[in-house]
C-alpha cells in the first residue's frame, strides 16, 4: 500500500516490475532444473524409497501423447513434405538443378522440420493438457492431498509424463520423417517424372544415419522440455479456473519458445 513517505515513482515501479518478471523467470528456470533432477532421482531410486514408478500411467500417457497424435502429425508432415518439394523445385529450376531437390528436402525434413513440427504439435496438444491438469489439481488441493498421503507428486504425476514424452516425441518424429519424405516423394516423382526407385535411392544415398539421429536426439530434448515447461507453468497457477486458462496458454507459448531456442543452441553446438 503506498503511503505518503513512499511516493509512487513510475520509473521505479517499472524497474520493480521488470525485476519481479525476471525473478519469476529465473525461479521458473530453477524449478525446471530441480524438477528434472528429482524426476531422474525417482526413476533411479523410486523402488528403494518405496515409491516405484508405475507402468500403467506411463502407457496411458503414451497413448495420449503419441498414438492419438498420429493422424494430425501425418497430415502435417505430408503437406510440409509436399510444400518443401514444390518450393525446392521452384527455387532450383532457376539454376537448372531441380534434380538435386531430393537432398535438400531429405535433409531439412529429418534434421529440422520433422522434430520441430512434432515438438510444436505435441506442445500444443499434450503440453497444454498437462499444464491444465496440473493447474486444476493444484487449485483443487489435489497435489496437497497427494503429498499428505505420502505420495511424491513428482514421482506420481511428472515422471510418467516425462517418460512418455521422451519416448513418444522421438517416435512421432521418426514417423513424421517417413511421412514427410513420402509426401515430398509424391510431388517430386510426379513433377520431375522421376521413378520411385530413383527417388528412394537418392534419398537413402544422401541421408546419413546421423541426420536422422540428429533430429531424433533433438526431439528427446523437446519432449523433456514440454513436460518441464508444462509442470512449471501448471503448478504456478493462481486464481481459480481463469488462472488455469492463463497458465495453459502460457505453457504452450513457453514450450514452443523453449523448443526453438533449444533447437538453435543444439544446432549451433553440433554443426558449427
Amino acid at each position, binding site marked *: 500500500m503506498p503511503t505518503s513517505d513512499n511516493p509512487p515513482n513510475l520509473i521505479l515501479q517499472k524497474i520493480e516490475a521488470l525485476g519481479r518478471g525476471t525473478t519469476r523467470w529465473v525461479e521458473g528456470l530453477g524449478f525446471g532444473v530441480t524438477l528434472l533432477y528429482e524426476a531422474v532421482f525417482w526413476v533411479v531410486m523410486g523402488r528403494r*524409497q518405496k*515409491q516405484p514408478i508405475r507402468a500403467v500411467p506411463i502407457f496411458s500417457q503414451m497413448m495420449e501423447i503419441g498414438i492419438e497424435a498420429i493422424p494430425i502429425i501425418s497430415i502435417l508432415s505430408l503437406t510440409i513434405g509436399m510444400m518443401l518439394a514444390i518450393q525446392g523445385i521452384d527455387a532450383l529450376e532457376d539454376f537448372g538443378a531441380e534434380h538435386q531437390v531430393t537432398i535438400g528436402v531429405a535433409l531439412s525434413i529429418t534434421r529440422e522440420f520433422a522434430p520441430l513440427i512434432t515438438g510444436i504439435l505435441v506442445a500444443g496438444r499434450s503440453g497444454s493438457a498437462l499444464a491444465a491438469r496440473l493447474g486444476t489439481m493444484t487449485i483443487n*488441493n*489435489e497435489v496437497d492431498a497427494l503429498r499428505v*498421503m505420502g505420495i511424491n507428486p513428482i514421482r506420481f504425476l511428472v515422471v510418467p509424463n516425462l517418460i512418455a514424452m521422451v519416448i513418444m516425441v522421438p517416435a512421432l518424429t521418426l514417423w513424421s520423417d517417413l511421412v514427410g519424405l513420402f509426401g515430398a516423394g509424391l510431388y517430386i516423382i510426379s513433377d520431375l517424372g522421376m521413378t520411385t526407385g530413383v527417388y528412394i535411392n537418392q534419398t537413402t544415398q544422401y541421408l546419413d544415419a546421423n541426420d536422422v539421429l540428429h533430429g531424433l536426439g533433438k526431439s528427446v530434448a523437446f519432449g523433456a522440455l514440454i513436460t518441464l515447461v508444462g509442470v512449471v507453468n501448471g503448478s504456478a497457477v493462481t486464481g481459480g479456473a481463469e488462472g488455469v486458462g492463463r497458465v495453459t496458454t502460457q505453457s504452450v507459448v513457453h514450450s514452443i519458445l523453449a523448443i526453438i531456442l533449444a533447437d538453435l543452441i543444439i544446432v549451433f553446438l553440433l554443426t558449427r
Partner: protein
Amino acid sequence: MAFLPTQPAPVIEVTDLVTHYGSRRILNNVTLEVRKGEIMVIMGGSGSGKSTLLRHLIGLERGSSGSIKLLDQDIGKMTDYELNQFYRKLGVAFQGGALFSSMTVGENIMLPLREHTDLDEKTMEIMVRLKLEVVNLAGFENFMPSELSGGMLKRAAFARAVIMDPVLLFCDEPSAGLDPVVSSSLDELILRLRDALNMTIVVVTHELGSAFRIADRIAVLDQGEVLSVGTVAQVQASDNKRIQDLLNRRFEEERLDPDAYLARLTGE
C-alpha cells in the same frame, strides 16, 4: 496451565510458531496442544490464519520459527522420506474433497493402500466398501467424482482420509458451502469416527454452530494469534472483546482504520 494427571497425553504440540508471507506476519507465536482422542476445533474468520495453521500442522508449509510435534516427533526436522512414511498415520480431508478427477471414487479411496501396502486386491476392495458404508456412500465406488454433490465429495474425502486408519485426522472446513442438514450429518460423522476409532481430530472451521456441536475444545484464532483455548463453555464465557466480537459473528468484518481506508480509496 495446570496439568491434571487424568488428561491424556498431547499428540500435537505447537510451540511458538511464527510464519511470514513476505513481510506480513500470518501466524504470531502460536502455541497449541491437542490431546489424544479429543476433537479440537480451530475457529476463526477469513484471514485469521487458521488455514495456514492447518497447512503447517500437516507439513505442507514450514514456519519461520517455532516447532510442531506430532506424536512426539518434530515434523520440521524430518527428511522427505521420513515425512512420507509418517503420513501413513495422518488423514486429511480437504475442503473441496480434493479427489482425483481421473479416478473413480473407489480408486481414489484405495490409492493410499495401493501405494503403501501389499494387501490382497480383495482385502482392499472390502476395505474401500467398508469405509463407504461408514460415510454413508455405499454403492458409489464406481462413480466419478464429477458425478457427486459437494456433500458427497466431502464424505468420500473422509473415507479416503481414514482408509489407512490414521491416528490423527485433520479436516478443513467440513461444513463450508453445505446446507444445514448435510452439514450436521458431517458433524455427526466426525463424532462417530472419533468414538469408534479413538482418533484425535483437528477441525478447522469458521462455522460457529458446527464448532460448538463437535468440539471438545476450541482454539480461537484471530489475526494469527491464539486468543483462547478451552471448552465450548469456557470460550463462550470469555470476556475477551475480540472473542465476543467473533462469537457475535462480526469476524468477517474488517477492523477499519479510517486513514488507511481513505488512502486506499483515493490511491494516494
